[in-house]
């Protein structure tokens, strides 16, 4: 037998390790189980797989060597940043190389006049803003994992955060990415000017989940730090009223810097955890932030408060100091760990819906809680319709895990039904790969495979993630009959 107890073919492993060791310094190639174990999952720990080999390049030339080797030996390769992803995009392969970019963590340049920073992919999101802070600048996308997540991973996932409505996603804040193709070639996407000739390949690369090329350097845009920021904490006695208030603010011509919502169960969980002083009688809480010059903030806070009152807010508090603003936000930012305290496990979803459907979808989630006998507190980036329902369950109970998966699947399909998407910022990865078959028809999925082929003809970069095979969709469809109709009736079924 050539296969170890962990499912690794060790003849193949020895071949790959030998080839990589010829090209990389010692210590940059790991294969013993005790060394590779810590790479077996990313932030979605329900899925685990020991990689055959882990490669830890320290520079671009070493990344090229790893990719050339994988291309020669036809070994699949999964790139990994900080491993904080929530959709299993960096789940290793038992017959593949896990390529960690964690050693490439240098900030190469900060240009305060041009307001850009050039960084290696392993630099953390927060480190970019910290390096920019002495110049009064910051990097806008702020995913909740910003102290740990890497810029390379942010680009791969097109990460968001709580300020997207005003400042955009990663795709709006990256100017240039340098990357290595599976053949080991270097490609520059975008540039330090505001646009570049030809197709917008940078837009394709952002959010491509490591399927097109491996990023070795990124130039990001830096923005001036707003002089002032204040946040309104508004209570509503009804979820739908809160949902409508969100639409009313936008309709009033205001783009808040942040517009977040949480329901009562979520608010209770965080209040017990961080004591943010939240109104626990409210059915929903809205956090509504304005930033800019002090004059601008005053003007926006006044008009937003007026809209919220007209939309039926039962109470409104406005942060009077920076400390109080931080306190109001502390609850929202601690929502995931707070929920983690009240349940052995939780499953976080990431659908996006048109804002006007907020009430309808929340009602639907409430019905599913009863149907599956599981609790589901909700936090959302309400401003951009991005939901994060958190299903509470115990992974040691196989039936609960099964019900959770069914529950999550129904929520995601509801998001598609109301005109939204299965993922707003966490990515498809391995987690939502089946729901891709619901969101897209075989024609679009075929086109996605075409895009991948244009960059990676043999499909060696992170295969099996992000875009399902049509065969997989047909298999999924067989198990998944919705409304009595089989999806993709035109496909042969095996």
């Amino acid at each position: 037998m050539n296969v170890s107890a962990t499912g690794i073919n060790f003849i193949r492993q020895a071949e790959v390790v030998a080839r990589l060791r010829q090209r990389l310094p010692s210590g940059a190639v790991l294969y013993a189980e005790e060394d590779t174990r810590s790479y077996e999952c990313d932030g979605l720990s329900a899925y685990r797989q020991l990689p055959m080999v882990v490669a830890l390049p320290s520079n671009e030339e070493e990344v090229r060597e790893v990719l050339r080797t994988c291309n020669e030996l036809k070994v699949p390769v999964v790139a990994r940043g900080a491993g904080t992803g929530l959709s299993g995009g960096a789940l290793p392969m038992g017959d593949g190389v896990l390529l960690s970019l964690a050693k490439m963590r240098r900030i190469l340049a900060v240009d305060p006049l041009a307001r850009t920073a050039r960084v290696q992919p392993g630099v953390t999101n927060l480190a970019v803003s910290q390096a920019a802070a002495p110049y009064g600048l910051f990097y806008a996308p702020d995913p909740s994992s910003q102290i740990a997540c890497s810029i390379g991973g942010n680009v791969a996932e097109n990460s968001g955060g709580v300020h997207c409505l005003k400042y955009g996603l990663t795709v709006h804040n990256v100017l240039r990415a340098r990357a290595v193709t599976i053949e080991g070639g270097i490609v520059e996407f975008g540039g330090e000017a505001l646009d570049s000739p030809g197709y917008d390949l940078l837009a394709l690369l952002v959010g491509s989940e490591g399927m097109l090329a491996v990023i070795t350097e990124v130039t990001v845009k830096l923005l001036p730090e707003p002089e002032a920021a204040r946040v309104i904490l508004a209570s509503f006695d009804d979820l739908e009223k809160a949902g409508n208030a969100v639409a009313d603010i936008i309709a009033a011509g205001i783009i808040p810097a942040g517009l977040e919502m949480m329901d009562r169960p979520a608010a209770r969980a965080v209040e017990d955890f961080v004591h943010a002083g939240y109104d626990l009688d409210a059915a929903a809480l809205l956090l509504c932030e304005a930033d800019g010059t002090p004059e601008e903030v005053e003007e926006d806070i006044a008009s937003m408060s007026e809209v919220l009152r007209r939309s039926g807010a039962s109470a409104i508090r406005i942060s009077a100091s920076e400390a109080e603003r931080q306190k109001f936000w502390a609850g929202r930012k601690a929502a995931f760990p707070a929920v983690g305290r009240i349940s052995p496990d939780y499953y976080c979803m990431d659908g996006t819906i048109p804002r006007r459907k907020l009430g309808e979808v929340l009602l639907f989630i409430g019905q599913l809680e009863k149907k599956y006998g599981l609790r589901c507190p909700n936090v959302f980036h309400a401003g951009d319709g991005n939901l994060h329902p958190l299903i509470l369950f115990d992974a040691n109970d196989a039936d609960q895990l099964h019900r959770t998966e069914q529950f999550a699947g129904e929520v995601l399909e509801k998001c598609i039904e109301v005109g939204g998407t299965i993922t707003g910022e966490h990515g498809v990865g391995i987690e939502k790969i089946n729901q891709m078959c619901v969101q897209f028809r075989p024609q679009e999925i075929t086109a996605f495979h075409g895009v991948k082929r244009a960059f990676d003809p043999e499909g060696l970069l992170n295969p099996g993630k992000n875009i399902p095979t049509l065969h997989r969709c047909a298999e999924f469809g067989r198990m998944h009959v919705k409304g009595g109709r089989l999806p993709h009736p035109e496909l042969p079924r095996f």
Partner: protein
Amino acid sequence: MHAEGFAESIRGAAASRTPLRLRGGGTKDFYGQALEGEVLDTRGYAGIVAYEPSELVVTARCGTRLAEIEAAMSEKKQMLAFEPPHFAQFGSGETTSFATVGGMVAAGLSGPRRQAAGALRDFVLGVKIIDGRGETLTFGGQVMKNVAGYDVSRLMAGSLGTLGLILEASLKVLPLPVAEATLRLELPEDKAIETLNKWGGKPLPISASAWTGGELGVRLSGAGAAVKAAREEIGGELIDAAQGERFWAGIREHTAPFFGSPVEDAAPLWRISVPSAAPPLKLQGEQMIEWGGALRWFFSQADARTIRDAARRAGGHATLFRGGDKFAGTFQPLSPALMKIHRELKREFDPHGIFNRRRMYPDL
């Protein structure tokens, strides 16, 4: 005209390998390398499909007049924040020439507000296209955040119709600014570039800038109080509101005196895109600087190579925007690695090479 009609035409053209020239109102016929193939006119497929002001999204068919969606938005005090140019005056010889939504997305051009609000590609949320096999495909959607699958919608922005016929596009819209003001200052070129970049590092509500011949125009947009405070900080002379509006429209539409009227023997217009802080480009000719220093228009007789080398040295690229000898190539040549990906993508979306052949590059 029905979408199915387009699909049939495209399938027919694919079967007979007949090149097609996808065209809306023809206002951007001047833009790009070559115009080849039988015209497939998109103007018959028009209309706003959905406009939800509180969702900040508009969805329109390709043949919809850009002016029509702008009017609908303006009624709701909203706008396309990237200020796409119409260039109606460049329509070839037709009195009714108008910019369309499909042509706008395919051209991918943005106007003065781009420096603050972002480019057209930043506002594309979803598209429906017909590929070179005649297959109708839908990518993205109407929501702000969507990371399911590759971002093919943004790939369509600026692809000059070489990958597919854009049937429908969904775009993010933004509220109109509450207040605007235009200031005029006198500054030499190097000082203007430096000053614009320094302002860029401060939280000032600058939404557009245009420098030419020693005069710098700056537009402020935002909350009333913010515009007022910024006026004091920046100084200069305040321009009358109506005059200011005309000034920016002239720059957006290339009707401002700088852009002149197209004359047969005039120098070609180059569009040079560089990092905003790049020092003055030492090129002969008349110049206008936009986008806080990041966009430099040149009417110059200098040869293409000189201009492209200067752009490259500054970290950017140059486009032969209007006029001149297209033999030198409209767009800055790509690296072999990038060109290879372009060819492969073209082959995937348009396997028979029927769409807008040579519009972008001679061999694409």
